């Protein structure tokens, strides 16, 4: 026994742990240092630490509500009445009347029975999914879903089947094959969900909602739709995809959105039936175990909804700006835009003149197999897009820096490379805003175009 103890002591002495954190690589450090710091308020034309005032196409301010005077006034009133923090989780006296009001406002705005608010947008969907989807349940998800959804899927421990990014045909095939599989196994009836996004965070593509609803009804699935980007940015008054396609929001079982992106407040929400919402009040981890949203920010979101309701011109201005920018950038040789023409979030991929040199592996094998569906068990599609991440990221970073010199603030879409389930093509992400004039947008687009051309041609 004593010898055994000694042995353990020796093992303990011998063990050398890895360092807790490896230092960043010089490139990562440079990237971190290159992140612009805004001095004073953010908005369409913020001032940077360098003293320069720039046109901001990087941050989410679709509706231009950032810095809105009415919202500020209401927020100040609320701070004086409620203080700042809510000082408790919703279950323990943290639910204030303004939270209840906001939940009501969201539900009314979208036309659902009820809604529930979470304190951070990113944590909303990763909490909503595991609240409903348990081990043994089936989820059919898009291959291009955002990181927050990926984390929700991971936590849920469901059986996951993947369909090709934004491809309704592939979705139907997967639904059929899953159905077949289930019939063969003669398993019990389990909960089945389709999880996808309205406007995709990864590339700005837009889901075909009517088709989604048709398929979900046909195959008896429940639909979890993440409208983090599309809520407050598409549709006549910013209600999102349901408004754009004129689909009743009640057809979407769990409609998740962000109050931070669309309404420039903070937090996220999930709208749906009373049963769906009440279930989350006890089972939504990030709802139950977190302090409620600060009351003043709940009021900011409520006021934002009010403004959107009464001012449809905001969304039409935004669409004008989208068209103006697309008109300039669609025709540039060295840019590919995977985003939907109506999406105010525009992803710009760099298109290199001859991409073939990037493919050392002969492509015939790929070509021959294409046409066959991808394996729904694997998150990777059969014919993945081939690109050189490092090269493209470097070029895009050069473009970002070049545009900044010309007075336009852009950002690469920052991704946790290696942690995302699929490798996402590097892009620059423009977030247009209704707060800029058409002229400003055109000018900015011209700057972006010039920066792309300059950087790409320099490479040659």
């Amino acid at each position: 026994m004593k010898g055994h103890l000694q042995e353990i002591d020796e093992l303990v002495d011998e063990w050398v742990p890895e360092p807790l954190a490896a230092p960043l690589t010089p490139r990562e450090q440079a990237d971190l240092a290159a992140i612009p710091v805004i001095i004073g308020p953010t908005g369409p034309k913020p001032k940077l630490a360098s003293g320069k005032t720039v046109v901001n196409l990087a941050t989410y301010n679709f509706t231009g509500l950032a810095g809105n005077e009415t919202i500020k006034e209401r927020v100040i009133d609320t701070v004086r009445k409620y203080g700042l923090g809510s000082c408790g989780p919703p279950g323990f006296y943290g639910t204030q009347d303004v939270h209840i009001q906001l939940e009501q406002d969201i539900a009314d705005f979208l036309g659902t029975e009820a809604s529930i608010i979470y304190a951070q947008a990113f944590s909303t969907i990763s909490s909503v999914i595991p609240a409903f989807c348990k081990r043994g349940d089936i989820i059919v998800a898009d291959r291009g879903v955002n990181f927050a959804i990926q984390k929700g899927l991971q936590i849920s421990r469901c059986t996951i089947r993947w369909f090709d990014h934004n491809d309704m045909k592939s979705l139907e095939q997967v639904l059929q094959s899953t159905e077949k599989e289930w019939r063969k196994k003669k398993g019990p009836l389990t909960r089945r969900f389709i999880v996808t996004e309205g406007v995709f965070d990864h590339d700005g593509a837009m889901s075909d909602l009517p088709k989604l609803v048709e398929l979900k009804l046909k195959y008896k699935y429940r639909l979890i739709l993440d409208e983090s980007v599309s809520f407050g940015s598409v549709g006549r008054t910013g209600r999102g995809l349901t408004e754009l396609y004129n689909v009743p929001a009640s057809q979407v079982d769990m409609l998740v959105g962000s109050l931070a992106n669309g309404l420039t407040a903070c937090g996220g929400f999930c709208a749906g039936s009373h049963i769906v919402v009440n279930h989350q009040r006890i089972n939504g981890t990030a709802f139950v175990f977190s302090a409620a949203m600060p009351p003043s920010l709940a009021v900011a979101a409520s006021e934002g909804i009010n403004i959107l309701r009464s001012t449809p011109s905001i969304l039409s201005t935004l669409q004008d700006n989208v068209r103006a920018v697309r008109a300039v950038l669609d025709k540039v040789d060295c840019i590919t835009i995977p985003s939907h023409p109506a999406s105010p979030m525009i992803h710009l991929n760099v298109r290199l003149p001859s991409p073939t040199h990037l493919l050392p592996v002969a492509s015939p094998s790929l070509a021959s197999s294409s046409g066959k569906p991808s394996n729904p068990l694997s998150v990777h599609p059969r014919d993945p897009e081939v690109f050189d991440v490092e090269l493209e990221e470097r070029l895009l970073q050069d473009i970002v820096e070049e545009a900044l010199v010309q007075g336009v603030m852009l950002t690469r879409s920052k991704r946790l490379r290696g942690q995302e389930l699929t490798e996402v093509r590097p892009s620059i992400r423009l977030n247009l805003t209704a707060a800029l004039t058409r002229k400003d947008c055109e000018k900015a687009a011209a700057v972006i175009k010039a920066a792309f051309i300059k950087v790409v041609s320099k490479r040659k």
Partner: protein
Amino acid sequence: MAIKSASPTPSIFKKKSYPAMNTAASYLSAVSEADARARAHGGTPNSTPALSLSSSVTTSSEDTVLHEIFTTVHTEFGHCGNEDYRYTSHYNPAHPVKGVTEQDPPYYILLTTYISYILVIIFGHIRDFFGKRFKHSSYRHLLAHDGYAALNSDFDSFYTRRLKLRIDDCFSHPVTGVPGRTIVLLDRYSPNYNKTFLPTGTRTRAMNLSSYNYLGFAQGKGACTEAVVESVNRYGVSACGSRLEGGTLDLHMQAESLVARFIGMEDALISSMGFATNSTIIPALVSKGCLVISDELNHASIRFGVRLSGANVRVFKHNDMQALESLLREVISQGQPKTHRPWKKILLIVEGLYSMEGTLVALPQIIELKKKYKFYLFIDEAHSIGALGPHGRGVCDYYGINPRSVDILMGTFTKSFGAAGGYISGNKVLVDRLRVYGHTGPYAEAMSPPILTQIIASMASIMGITLPEKSSSSRSLIRNTEGPIPGVEYEQYPGKAPVSALPPWMLTPSTMVDGSEGLTRLRRLAFNTRYLNRGLRKLGFITYGHDDSPIVPLLLFNPGKMAVFSRLMRTRATPIVIVVVAYPATPLVTSRVRFCLSASHTKEDIDTLLAACDEIGDLLDLKQAAGERWPLHEIITRAVELVNMEEVP
């Protein structure tokens, strides 16, 4: 900041967004002059006058400004002028923190507790059985229909439907106004046995022992609120994006560097939600091949984060250092499962103060173990930061341990600072890595400007502020990147905040500058904490936790007593709101009431609470503890003595 005259209208700010740097400095000197003048007149004592007197303190016209800043609203932050009702929270090595001291109730209490659970469960199943057959409509969501599986299984939701529903009137009560010393309840009633609640339209102001408001910074008036209002005027309410994608404001940088200084670490990063601080950043710390050793009572956010990280997890008995050591020996000698390769790294995650138990982490022992077993230490200070220690810097401060001997200190701003969100602090290499590799940096919204301002203002008022002219010596405590040199740096921590660390437009009244406001808050909280803990024990209640824990759990055991206790408290002549918790947040038999104390409570508030507990405790047969008992009036009159005792016999 009644000194509004100095600040032009918001529209002017937009164009000329930065006033000269010396505005704050010159204001500060004006403030200290005015303060000196007031002292010379003998009008105001050294303590914060408005905390002690009624809100209508006014003297000569030029000083009015200052007094208005001190003014607190009695319902938000109780006035308490008696300097005896203060205590300093600190560790006494003569009485080391014990792991867990659980007292068992008499057997009949345990027996009846089990019986009542069994009864409720049997009734629930009977009702489910008949309900599903005869009342189809109300069970629709629990049954498969039209080819859809039930949204939630009746088994999973049984506890919620059949046990929690019975006492649902004690949860999620809507409130309004400041969650300070008192809180306003929006009265409601249920026409259908708690299925739904309808507002009655009336309101009740109740004494608040439920909110996490340790230092009483939940206020609609005062220096912090004025700073927040000013920040909304200047910045609006949003940073509009994630930190790495253009959502970084100067305020973020200022807040992060102040937080690092407050905690005594090299660097800190801020995340916009407390829960997400753990759930999105732990995955960047550990991964496959690493081991996380976790206290069994760790918060859900930690478990969420660890699950996402893919690391292995081992759990040890709550606060049991022997169990921890034997586990460490086992895991290090055994290595990874199956392969038996040595672990890449081992991360021990504990909380500073456990929110359900009121227990403190046994940090000195853990630091000893750390030296021997070379694990990394992560302390979640969600509840302890601000609430413990002579300077309010959390458990390290409480035990007098150099914070840099801990690898990662995490905490939230919700509880002590009246704000929202959380932070992670550590050395610069680590924090920079987390900025890039945490999920928060690229994906989650950055923290809003008003929240950042609340954090800066409340922290500065706890720290005190060094004015420019005398800053030369103490300013060297500013982030020292040369690496931890324990002896040298520790002398400088915990220091004041240099005025240059604050936004130049933030106005700082003299009580904030000298740190007296913050100190009063800390000392009032420490007094209230010890008084209630010891008072309840002297009354004969079974309580858990440490005497210096501002969370005081009082054990009820029988589930039925939870609702009765909560309702009796809420319907007293002076209504009191408290939180009751039971399974699954606690073990099945140990249902409890949780009191959350605050600096905003006065000694008389605690007296009222003790009287209420005394009465209800007799009614519900709760006084089951062994030990010497005092009658209520004796506790109230000998409060100061009780608090200052080394240890209660």
